[in-house]
């Protein structure tokens, strides 16, 4: 029987990859966003001691207005250029997809009444949210992934409707994992507060210019982090409509709701690896070691 062994909030600012200067990324940086990058380092160190087979992540930057989509091509190799920050992120990626697990998730979601589709076009360019979070968690790309799109029901209906759909998706993805033989790491690829600066310094990694866009966003970020650190994950979901609206949060993607639900609303304290801002947005790297099966079903 498969299981979810670890879950993480794994935001995807391309700045973090830029600042690390990996060989896959063309632009070069001097430094930058060390707090978050060192947090990701600690997350990777913890994950290195955990045996797992597949990374499953939900990305806000694969935006699908009709249904939830799953990558369904076994291997991708291409160039990812960030449409917002192309000066920072031009990354040559090569990755494997756990297509059987993705297909099982797609079937389970369809059985639950969700609109779904497998993405079978080999020319498809994997979204940069998937690439950035995937790189920061596993830069070797030696584990296959399942990438799930963000179905934009928060835009079409409301955060409440989005959450219902994300919890149904979480039940389906969890059932698919449990019906497989996979040990899975689940990731929500998103920021917390998400109001950007609209200007960029001449040196993008000039940290003297970096801070949260406004105090009220910071307060919201701290409130969410405090809940996660205290194991109050159901409250995170309960407060999501207010948080999403007032912090202009990327949680409108559904990724955070899906993460809380697919993990079974863990009550153990989360490990906060880092909090930092990137071009004004609030980002936290947060992990849950789920190997002790004490959680309720979503």
């Amino acid at each position, binding site marked *: 029987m498969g299981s979810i062994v670890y879950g993480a909030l794994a935001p995807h600012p391309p700045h973090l990859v830029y600042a690390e200067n990996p060989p896959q990324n063309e632009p070069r940086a001097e430094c930058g966003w060390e707090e978050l990058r060192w947090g990701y380092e600690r997350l990777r160190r913890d994950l290195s001691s955990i045996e797992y087979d597949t990374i499953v992540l939900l990305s806000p930057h694969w935006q699908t207005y009709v249904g939830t989509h799953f990558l369904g091509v076994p291997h991708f190799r291409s160039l990812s250029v960030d449409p917002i920050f192309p000066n920072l992120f031009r990354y040559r990626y090569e990755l494997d997809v756990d297509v059987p697990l993705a297909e099982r998730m797609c079937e389970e979601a369809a059985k639950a009444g969700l609109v779904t589709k497998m993405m079978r*076009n080999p020319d498809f360019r994997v979204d940069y949210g998937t690439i950035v979070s995937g790189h920061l968690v596993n830069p070797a790309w030696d584990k296959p992934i399942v990438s799930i799109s963000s179905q934009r029901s928060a835009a079409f209906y409301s955060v409440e409707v989005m959450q219902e759909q994300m919890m149904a998706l979480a039940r389906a993805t969890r059932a698919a994992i449990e019906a497989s033989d996979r040990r899975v790491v689940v990731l929500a690829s998103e920021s917390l507060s998400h109001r950007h600066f609209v200007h960029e310094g001449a040196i993008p990694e000039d940290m003297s210019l970096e801070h949260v866009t*406004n105090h009220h966003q910071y307060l919201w970020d701290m409130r969410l982090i405090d809940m996660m650190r205290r194991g109050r994950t159901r409250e995170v979901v309960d407060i999501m409509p207010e948080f999403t609206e007032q912090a202009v949060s990327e949680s409108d993607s559904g990724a955070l709701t899906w993460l809380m639900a697919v993990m079974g609303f863990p009550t153990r304290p989360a490990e906060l690896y880092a909090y930092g801002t990137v071009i004004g947005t609030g980002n936290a790297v947060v992990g849950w070691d789920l190997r002790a099966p004490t959680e309720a079903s979503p």
Partner: protein
Amino acid sequence: MSAEPEEERPPGVVAGVLVPGLPHPLLCPERNPGWQRLRTAFEAARQDLLAAEPDLLMVYSTMWPSIIGHQVQADPQPTWVHVDELFHDLGSIPYQFRIDDDFARATVAAARARGLESRTVAYHGFPIDTGSVVALKLLNPDNAVPAVILSSNVYSDRAETLVFGKACRDAILAQGRRVATVVVGTLSNRLFTDWIDADPSKPVEDHVHSLKDDEWNRKILEFLGEGRLEDTAQLSREIHRQIRIPKVVSFKSMWWWSGVMGQHNHYRGQVYAYEALYGTGAAVVGLTPTEAGVGEKEFDEDDVERYRGDRNVIA
């Protein structure tokens, strides 16, 4: 292009066209009669654009969001095989476009001169959005006319968008170019949330998502058909409230369009087609500057000449 003497072809914005950006008219028009009519309308609009003898196409795409100011495509020959993130099963779209990088830089300079943040993007593999790809493939299939592509800033309000339109006009006049503007965007933008084309062997049943959306679309087309561009721009906030899903960018394209074309109603409008496109309201509409037109109406919104920065109203 004809070899008409230069003095008889004065610079400026010589034509404009509004087109939808979803890929169906390009990739599968045969699946629905309305999609086919949109495809036919693209061709009619193309012919009329060419008749105006532009030497540049300026594309403003509501499907290319930006955050750091206003981005302008400046890769002289962007080449890629594009796949839409939603309708990926319709197939791949290979493209190679002809971009006027000099004019792109002039646009950025003009935007900065009016206080705006702006920058060019010229990177191999930059993800040109589906809407721009569809528009250029159908309106300029042989790259006969060079183009520039402009982003739609996520945070820009009416003032900033309007100023950006004026900056584009500054660049056109300073460079002495004859420009056809292309706005990529739907009218009502609510898609169906379930598949209407699941069986590829069958024709697709499509209609505008709701009667309310359809009625608003027809009101917009009544305005544009009469050449009332500024009236439409003045109505944009209400249009957004009534028939726009809050996706990444708002219904701000009319602000840019009136800024670059001219903030008045002196246009000859032509509605080439209005059809449902996966539930959205998709129209191909042309505007040609003219001395006639319905003239000035009562405009309520302030005019703005220069962008003076974020007022930090939420800080």
